[in-house]
Every structure is written in structure tokens, then in C-alpha cells.
């Protein structure tokens, strides 16, 4: 269970990205966060695993106060959260297997990491995860040889091989074409459900969110302005999230 309460963040540049965000993710469902560009979606996600340090507020993962942890404990907590990125963020010059195994870096010492000697269980898990994301036999390809969709599958495998308790997913399909977007989104939600873990998914594509979500959170200018099932996401709700004019321009 993920509990976020009273989260606030102002960047040194003065951008007030989050203005008091509270919500809870219970059970195993994927929760989709929608909102215009600049609404604070990425900041919110990064505050959960403290890649961005929130100014105020509390994040609890299964009762553990993530915001109170010191560096060491924070690293341990991050191992329990898998993150998937819009730009994939693979290490381009490393092989697919090295990229996937980097999801286990929190568990191996520096020397074995340097020599690429991961425990047999980790290697086996990496092979299985690669098969689950449909990349069987790709382990020795270099990440920069892959297509966008394939790269995102490696990104998903890297997150899953952590055996996380939650997935944090930041616009996973924004760099992909529409068809691949749907497959990748189906893959993420499907695998999360298989593993019985919830996911917090940022997305700006409203139809895609509607197609996959049970619950949608609408973020606008750093505040939650909508929280409910897709069926409740009607015209007035969308106007609240995206602003009247922008929404009409899109329609």
C-alpha cells in the first residue's frame, strides 16, 4: 500500500510543481495519473522514491515512512520500487542482459558488479523476465541496437527483476508510436497484475488511460482535481484538469 499525504515541491528555479498532493493506492490495481504537461506528474512520481526530494509531506510504502529514511535505508526502500521511464533510460552501450541485471545492483557487491558476476538466481530471474516481456534471445544485443518498443521492454524487465512491491511508471509510451504504445501499456498492466503489485502510471494520453484504468487521478498545476473511475471522467472533469480552451482545441 502506498500512502502519499501533503506532498509539496518547489524547485530551486521557483517552479511550484506540487501544492499538497494526497492519495492512497491500495490493493493491486494500476492507478493512472493524467494531466497536462507541467502539471507535476513526473515530480510526483520522483518524490515517491525521492529521486526528487519533496519539501513537505509524507510517503509511506507498506507503512514505512520513505521520507524519513537516511541514504542507506532509502536505497533499500528503492529496491522495493521498480521505475519505468518515458525515455527508457537504458545504458545504451551495455547489453540487454547488463541493463536488466542492473535491477539487481542493490543486492550485489561492487566487485561482482564490476566483473559482471551476478548470483545464479539473479541471472535466472533476468532470463525469465526477458522471456516475460517477449525478448527471449535478446540478452547479448546492445541496448542501442533495439527499437523503441524493444527498449521499453528492457526497461520493464529491469524494473520487474527487482521484484518490487510497486511500479512507478512515468509516461511509458510517450516516445512510442500508437500501436506499440498499446502493446507496451498492456504488457505493463498485465505483468503487474500477474505479480500482484500495484502500479502508479503517469500518462498524458486520456483514451489510453481510459482503456486500461480502473482509477484515474487528475493533476493540474500541482493539485489533485479529479480522483475516480474512468466512467466519471466526463467533460466538466476533463475541463478541470486540462482547462477549457485547451480541451476544446484537442476535441
Amino acid at each position: 500500500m502506498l500512502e502519499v499525504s501533503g506532498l509539496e515541491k518547489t524547485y530551486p528555479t521557483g517552479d511550484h510543481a506540487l501544492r499538497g498532493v494526497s492519495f492512497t493506492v491500495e490493493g493491486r490495481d494500476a492507478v493512472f495519473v493524467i494531466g497536462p504537461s507541467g502539471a507535476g506528474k513526473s515530480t510526483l512520481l520522483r518524490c515517491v522514491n525521492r529521486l526528487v526530494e519533496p519539501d513537505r509531506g509524507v510517503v509511506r510504502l507498506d507503512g514505512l515512512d520513505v521520507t524519513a529514511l537516511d541514504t542507506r535505508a532509502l536505497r533499500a526502500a528503492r529496491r522495493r520500487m521498480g521505475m519505468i521511464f518515458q525515455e527508457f533510460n537504458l545504458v545504451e552501450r551495455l547489453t540487454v542482459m547488463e541493463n536488466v541485471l542492473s535491477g539487481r545492483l542493490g543486492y550485489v557487491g561492487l566487485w561482482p558488479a564490476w566483473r559482471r558476476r551476478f548470483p545464479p538466481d539473479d541471472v535466472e530471474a533476468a532470463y525469465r523476465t526477458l522471456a516475460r516481456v517477449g525478448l527471449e534471445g535478446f540478452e547479448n544485443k546492445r541496448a542501442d541496437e533495439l527499437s523503441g518498443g524493444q527498449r521499453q521492454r528492457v526497461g520493464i524487465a529491469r524494473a520487474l527483476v527487482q521484484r518490487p512491491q510497486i511500479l512507478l511508471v512515468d509516461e511509458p509510451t510517450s516516445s512510442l508510436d500508437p500501436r506499440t504504445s498499446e502493446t507496451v501499456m498492456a504488457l505493463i498492466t498485465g505483468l503487474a497484475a500477474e505479480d500482484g503489485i500495484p502500479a502508479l502510471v503517469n500518462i498524458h494520453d486520456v483514451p489510453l488511460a481510459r482503456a486500461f484504468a480502473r482509477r484515474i487521478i487528475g493533476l493540474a498545476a500541482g493539485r489533485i482535481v479529479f480522483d475516480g473511475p474512468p466512467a466519471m471522467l466526463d467533460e466538466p472533469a476533463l475541463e478541470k484538469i486540462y482547462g477549457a480552451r485547451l480541451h476544446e482545441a484537442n476535441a
Partner: protein
Amino acid sequence: MGDTAVGARVWRRYSPAQTAARWSAELALAVVTALMLWHVGVRWEYLADAPAQVGDLLGRMLPPEWAFAGSLLHPLAQTINIATLGTAGAIVLSLPIAFFAALNTTPGRVAYALARVVIVVSRSVDTLIWALVFIIVVGPGSLAGTLAVAMRSIGFLAKLFAEGIEEIDRGQVEAVTATGASRLATLLYGIVPQVKPVFLGVSIYRWDINIRESTVLGLVGAGGIGFTLNDAILGLEWARVGLIILVVLAVVLLSEAVSALARRRVT
């Protein structure tokens, strides 16, 4: 992928052959380094003593002999003179060489080859060695230093100038030629505007390198503050050496800053 006894698959970043190749390359580098270290002859007792020696030397250099600062003005001016005039002379001489050494402006094969030879010889011999040569010809002093700086800089400047010329856009030159302009006019309107920023930038950059080079020319007798430094070292006047090194540091840093500023202005 063969399963092992426990059923876990094995993954290796490198195949055994690749691993062997990597290890042998690393080993070869280590062995060569060790052999060279052995051949160079490290006298460990000297090395162990080095920090103490450097500490002792620093102790003698500091505080620097500030009173000597007045006597440094003239050698310092000489250093700047040598660097500046050497650079200026090299710019003038390297312009024709650059046009000969650029594939798109060279008048012919022979001129191209000659220009390339001049560039190569000029660049491979250090300023200090050129200074040794010119001291034989014109005697010790600032002139030898200036000629040495110029000689070393010709190759550097001509090479980079030529690269700048080779990168010009043919289209712009063609457009000027198409108006019926003379060769000189084509040069002025079609080529010069394109290469001017590169030429200015490279020249200023070389000037600042030459300031640094000129600080040591005096150590072989070719003028400038290095001459005073040599005297101080021979006379074991370490507090003076300390002051000279501080002044050299300041001048080099200052010229670097000026050069960086001026280059930003021209590009």
C-alpha cells in the same frame, strides 16, 4: 543455454575466448608497464624522500621574495613581447602556407606537398628545441625566442587555418563568382567572411599557448622571465624562484582568461 545442476542458466558478459583476450591485453599492459618501470630504474629511497624534498623546497620558496618583484617587470615584458611578436610573425607567414595546404585552394600538387612538409616539421619540433637552433643562428636573447615561437606556431596555425579553409561553403563562393566579381573580390566577399572567425579564434588561442611557452624559453637562453628563473635557481635563491613561479602562474592564468574572452568575442 545449458542448464546447470541447480537449473539456473549461466550468463557471461564475455565468451571464454573474449575473457582470455581481455585478460591477456590487461596483463600485457601491466607487464610492459612493469618492465618499463624496472628499466627506468626507480630508486625507491629517492622517491620515498621526494615529499620531504618538495616540502623543504616549498618551505624555502615561501614566503616569496616580494622585494624582487620590481626586477621582474622587464623580463615579464620580454616574455609577452616574445609570445606576441612570435605569434604575429607566425600568422603572417602561415596565411599563404594555409592556402597552399588546403585542398580547395591549393595551386598545385607541389605547393600542397611543400606546405604540408613545412607544417609537419614545424609542429613536431618543440618551441624549446627551435630556441636551441635559433640561438646558434642569432645568439642568445629575445630574438631567438621570438623566432622559435614563430617557427613552432607556423605549423599549428597553418594546419588549423587550412582546416578552416577546407570547411568553407562552396556555394557562397560560387554565388560571388557568379556576379562577375574578380578573384580578389571573390576572396574578400566569398572566402574571408567565412574563415575570419576561425582564423581570429585560432590565432588568439595560439597566443595564449605561446605566453605559456615563452615563460620557459629563458631556461635555454632565449629570453624572457625564464632567464631570471634560471639565474635564481643557479644562485639557489629559492624565495626568488617562488616569486617567479607565482608571477608565471598569474600571467598564464590571466592570458588564458583574456584569450577565452577575446575568442568569445570573435565567434
